[in-house]
């Protein structure tokens, strides 16, 4: 069980990451990531929806006939997204003003439906919940990374307005890396979303290729041993 849990979490965070491996949820990954805080907020909202959707769909999986599963999934996800949308509007109104438009769009984030279809409808409740956490955190990680890079180059700050999202205690996160920075306007504009995502994808590929290389001689040695 614990090995299985670790594998599911690792899959969500790295090996099968929603943004960097499945290439799903591109709309929020491009549109919202103008700063680290926006990416983090969007990622956490999606994580909440993912975990709840996975749990509910997994517990209902024996009662939903295969013919109507997609409409049922959509109705459930839409309900959860509406809940998140209203909660954000009520308790984090400033963040809602920034992210509001995109929160409603979590409904059409293929990643949520994708996990419901490919994982939650085939696995137990606890496993599905773990998968939701892993995938959601992986998504949050990706969005925050893209957001931080764009924010750093574009405006010279990191996690600006973090206290809006996490409360005043987290004001220490807000850093101005380069004071009197003129800014690189393009990094805040949409083209840079594609640019940074492409470069991060290339970096991940290079990283995985490098990780694979030393294992090849070891496998040969193992064969030689036998």
């Amino acid at each position: 069980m614990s090995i299985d849990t670790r594998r599911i979490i690792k899959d969500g965070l790295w090996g099968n990451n929603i943004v960097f491996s499945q290439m799903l949820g591109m709309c929020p990954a491009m549109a919202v990531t103008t700063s680290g805080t926006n990416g983090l907020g969007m990622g956490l909202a999606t994580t909440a929806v993912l975990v709840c959707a996975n749990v509910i769909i997994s517990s209902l999986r024996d009662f939903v006939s295969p013919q109507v599963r997609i409409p049922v999934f959509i109705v459930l996800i839409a309900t959860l997204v509406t809940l998140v949308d209203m909660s954000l509007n009520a308790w984090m109104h400033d963040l809602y003003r920034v992210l509001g438009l995109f929160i409603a769009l979590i409904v059409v984030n293929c990643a949520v439906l994708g996990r419901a279809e490919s994982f939650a409808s085939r696995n137990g409740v606890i496993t599905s919940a773990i998968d939701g956490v892993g995938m959601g955190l992986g998504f949050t990680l990706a969005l925050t990374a893209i957001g931080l890079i764009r924010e750093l180059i574009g405006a010279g700050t990191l996690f600006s307005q973090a206290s809006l999202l996490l409360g005043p205690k987290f004001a220490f996160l807000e850093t101005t890396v380069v004071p009197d920075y003129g800014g690189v306007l393009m990094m805040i504009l949409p083209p840079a979303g594609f640019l940074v995502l492409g470069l991060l994808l290339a970096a991940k590929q290079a990283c995985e290729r490098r990780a694979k290389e030393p294992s090849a001689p070891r496998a040969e040695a193992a064969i030689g041993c036998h």
Partner: protein
Amino acid sequence: MTHNLTLTAPPTAPHTLAANSISRIMLTVAATLAPATLYGFWLYGWPSIFLWVITVLAALFGEALCIKLAGRSVVSALSDGSALLTGWLLAISLPPWAPWWIGVLGGLFATILAKQVFGGLGFNLFNPAMVGRVFLLISFPVQMTVWVAPLPITAASAPGFHDGLLIAAHGIPSMDAVSSATLLGFAKTELSRGIDLLHSLAGTNAPGIVLSGARSGSMGETASLLILAGGMVLIFLRIISWHIPAALLAGLALPAAIAHGIDPTRYLDASSHLFSGGAMLGAFFIATDYVTSPNSRIGQLVFGAGCGFLTFVIRTWGGYPEGMAFAVLLMNAMTPVIDRYIRPRILGRDWRGAPLDPATQKGKS
């Protein structure tokens, strides 16, 4: 083995050797750009020379870095001259007194992200120099729109070698003293203030100024006659064909002339459009890039006309005073479509590709 063979037997298809190579073409293009560039150096003085050197070096460095990462020979890749030309074209499309980091960022962006990421020479979808320029224009709108009035290097008040270094390092010390608007920018701001062109352009648009290029702008746009001459040499040497430049200039001049005829107070005349901004540089040196333009002659006419017309549209109704770079990039994106639909007729077949029957052809004629 020896080429003496050609003396006895006429060379036929698979065995002919052309004297052209990539590096020879690139260096010829660079040579035809040199007069306009040298004239620009004289007009704008030491800061422009430093900016040119920095931009070209940055482009070469970006290219060398990627080639080295890819594990190929750096010397042979750099000696093809394409990175030099990319940096050169980018440098002469920048404001001549821009600070050094504009050149560095633009040069690196052009060769690394617009060219090598796609696979290097021959694989880039978009013209690297123009991608670099558009990146800079969108990212740094202030630095990219500060133009200086020409101050010939021989003039007493022109910055010397040392002052030029300081300007290239820190930017222009007191902007108001030297800055002035380009013709297109000036016309646009005055129009937005409600002053019509007949009043705002009185005196500034004299033919002598247009022809000598002694006005504010980038190095590649003020000396438009020298650029035109260089382009003519390229056509004469058969490095480029006349189709793209002619179609581009016509696509820009015809709508401009029609609009000017309808309402001269709102629309600039055709010669102002042709001889200001990047029109000449774009027509002869940028839109004619082999890699990013269509292959067939008719396709090239469509491509050129599209570039010219889009430039006119952006200049007239767009948010930026100059639109050549945007127009070329948009038409670069259209190039695969143009090549898909406009193909040359195959010899012995009709336009749809069906084989021609020799007997019926003879009968018809």
